[in-house]
């Protein structure tokens, strides 16, 4: 088994070296050695200054709003005596956006609230336009709410509820326990969640490209894209990437600092437990109504708008329902099938490699305690934290003239960015599996490899399925890396949907988005059923 782990580590290390370390090193070396770049002029230009400010605003406001809303909503759902069905339905509805790329929600909101063509704008003409920085923050907040709720769910599942009970018995009201007991104990998790959401929002490309750029508001990622695609200014793209990287690193270091040694803070006294549930008061019921409203605007409305748009022959006429767009996309857009097959191929191969490496590396770390395996997982986490724009640019520079315009470079990019999902899912699952189950196999004559294949792998089947799904879904409709790396014949679903939405046919883009979303939701449902609710959303 050790030999298998070692040989897969060689493969893993080679992939990381060729996909992450060397490309990044070369990219930044080239950036720093560009001559004739007036850095002071570059960073003091209003355009770059605004892009940086917009990026920070987008990142921090999105993180602030989504973390606060997610915490309050999670507490209300956890603390009061609601119907379990209602809680489950709301929880699933609010977390579902995490399964889909954020730019699908931007497309949904364009269909709903774009000037002149938005369905909601037809009903409420005074509704503000979705374009601009405020619309971008709004959509990113709604999407990040799902991410933040998933993060905070872990906190509430481990929170000793009797701490709230003790406060209630001391005469505190539920609201007082929330502010004086639960919130202070949740502070490290809240700060960590805030920083993780801000890193993810800082790296966002699709939503600002669709909602902010049309209003001539740019963030760093869209400015980098513009520098490459329109201005052909690699030096500027390099320096902006460096700036983006520095901000990302600062946020991640802060997150690590906040969480260092703080895991136990929320688990101050032993076992997790539910507090005695409270009967909903008038205020709690009002808050519940607000949660339902947010579930509708975060999930139901944009998805429904996308579905409706995919069935409309004429975008501005909601009665023109037909299958015309579906027939058109799959029979008359030659790129449609190419994009579908390319995305399926790269996502599937990338996912299988990521899951295999993730499983073996997680085994090396959890069972054999190999330091090299921990490093591999750490390097993968760095890849995950890096903005996709930087990964794509560094690959472009490193592989210039060789594998650019092939699916290899896309696969590399996806693997570096999303490979961490596999190890992140499998590592805790493997740690949770009692080592004695494996030792019992050894004591019954099985070699370590036989024990791994006959005992560990079958017991990890649900986690392996989850790892496959979690890596496959973002790779299938990936946008940020794809828009920079696709070439002739290597069109992907994400890039094609973006191109159709921005320049050609939003209805056709909606068709592809609906197909991808449907496939994702069906797979997620199947995974939940197979794992009896342990995995999936």
């Amino acid at each position: 088994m050790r030999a298998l782990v070692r040989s897969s580590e060689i493969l893993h290390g080679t992939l990381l070296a060729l996909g992450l370390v060397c490309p990044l090193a070369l990219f930044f070396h080239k950036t720093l050695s560009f001559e004739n770049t007036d850095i002071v002029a570059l960073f003091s230009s209003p355009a770059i200054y605004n892009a940086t400010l917009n990026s920070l605003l987008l990142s921090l406001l999105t993180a602030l709003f989504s973390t606060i809303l997610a915490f309050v909503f999670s507490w209300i759902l956890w603390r009061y005596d609601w119907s379990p069905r209602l809680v489950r339905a709301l929880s699933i509805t609010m977390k579902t956006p995490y399964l889909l790329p954020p730019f699908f929600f931007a497309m949904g909101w364009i269909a709903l609230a774009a000037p002149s063509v938005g369905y909601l704008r037809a009903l409420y003409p005074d509704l503000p336009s979705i374009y601009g920085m405020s619309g971008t923050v709004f959509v990113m907040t709604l999407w990040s709410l799902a991410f933040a709720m998933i993060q905070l769910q872990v906190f509430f599942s481990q929170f000793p509820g009797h701490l709230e009970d003790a406060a209630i018995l001391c005469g505190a009201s539920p609201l007082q326990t929330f502010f004086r007991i639960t919130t202070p104990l949740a502070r490290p998790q809240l700060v960590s969640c805030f920083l993780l959401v801000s890193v993810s929002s800082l790296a966002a490309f699709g939503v600002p490209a669709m909602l902010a750029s049309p209003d001539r508001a740019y963030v760093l990622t869209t400015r980098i894209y513009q520098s490459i695609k329109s201005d052909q200014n690699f030096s500027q793209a390099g320096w902006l990437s460096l700036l983006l990287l520095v901000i990302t690193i600062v946020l991640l270091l802060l997150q690590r600092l906040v969480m260092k040694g703080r895991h136990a803070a929320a688990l101050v006294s032993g076992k997790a437990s539910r507090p005695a549930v409270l009967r909903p008061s008038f205020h709690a019921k009002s808050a519940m109504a607000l949660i339902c409203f947010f579930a509708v605007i975060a999930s139901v409305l944009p998805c429904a708008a996308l579905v409706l748009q995919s069935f409309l022959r004429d975008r501005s006429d909601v009665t023109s329902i037909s299958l015309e767009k579906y027939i058109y996309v799959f029979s008359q857009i030659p790129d449609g099938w190419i994009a579908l097959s390319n995305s399926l191929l790269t996502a599937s191969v990338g996912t299988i490699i990521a899951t295999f490496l993730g499983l073996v590396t997680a085994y090396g770390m959890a069972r054999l305690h190999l330091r090299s395996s921990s490093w591999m997982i750490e390097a993968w986490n760095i890849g995950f934290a890096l903005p996709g724009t930087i990964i794509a640019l560094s690959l472009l520079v490193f592989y210039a003239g060789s594998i650019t315009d092939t699916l290899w470079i896309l696969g590399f990019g996806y693997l570096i960015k999303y490979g961490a999902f596999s190890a992140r899912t499998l590592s805790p699952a493997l740690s949770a599996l009692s080592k004695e189950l494996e030792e019992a196999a050894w004591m019954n004559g099985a070699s370590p490899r036989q024990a791994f294949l006959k005992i560990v792998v079958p017991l990890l089947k649900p986690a392996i399925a989850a790892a496959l799904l979690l890596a496959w879904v973002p790779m299938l409709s990936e946008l940020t890396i794809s828009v920079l790396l696709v070439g002739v014949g290597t069109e992907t679903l994400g890039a094609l949907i973006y191109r159709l939405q921005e320049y050609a046919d939003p209805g056709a883009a909606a068709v592809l988005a609906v197909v991808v979303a449907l496939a994702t939701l069906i797979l997620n449902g199947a995974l939940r059923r197979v794992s009896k609710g342990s995995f999936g959303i």
Partner: protein
Amino acid sequence: MRVKVESLRKSFGSTPVVDNVTFTVEEGELVTLLGPSGCGKTTVLRMVAGLERPSGGRIWVGDRLFSDEKSFVPPHQRGIGMVFQSYALWPHRTVFKNIAFPLEIQKHPRDDIEARVREVLGAVALEGLAERYPHELSGGQQQRVAVARAIAQKPTVLLMDEPLSNLDAKLREQMRRELKSLQRDLKLTMLYVTHDRLEALELSHRMAILDHGKLIQIGTPQDVTENPANDFVAHFIE
């Protein structure tokens, strides 16, 4: 087969947990390792099993040297059976498949596997439960399956790591009697870890008392009770 442990040592980092332990278990004998939590008894058992690599000393089973400074036989090549404290039953395999596992690994013909599994199921009084999954069994039944799986491969030695500690008092008493008769009927050489002195007194041919990684005294229950080596033993066995 006879088990011989000689000058066995184990350290985790700079902390010694087993310090120069020497004892033998004769063929067909049941020896218990008795001591308080953290005294190193489970570590000794795991070193005999091959699940931990000793820092020093030797382990023989029969004429075969399993472990010394230069050589180490991995657990799957030792032919030793073990019952874990948690039972370690594989939740994805039925009772039948749990017990059949060692025989499948040894590539026995299917008919032989079927016959042997039925035989050991009879020995532990679990006929009729072969197609159940572990979670469908009571604690006592799970414990019997763990024993059945350990003896299915006809091990040279059977190791038991506090196998009764998860059972209630009444069931523990019943299982003690059953283990005793099973050991006698099958003439098993057994090394048994427990912190329960009553269990040790009832089951053992000889008992070895450990404290802080050192073997303090080994002898028959009567010897140890009547002539404790020091105050610790006297107090512990009281």
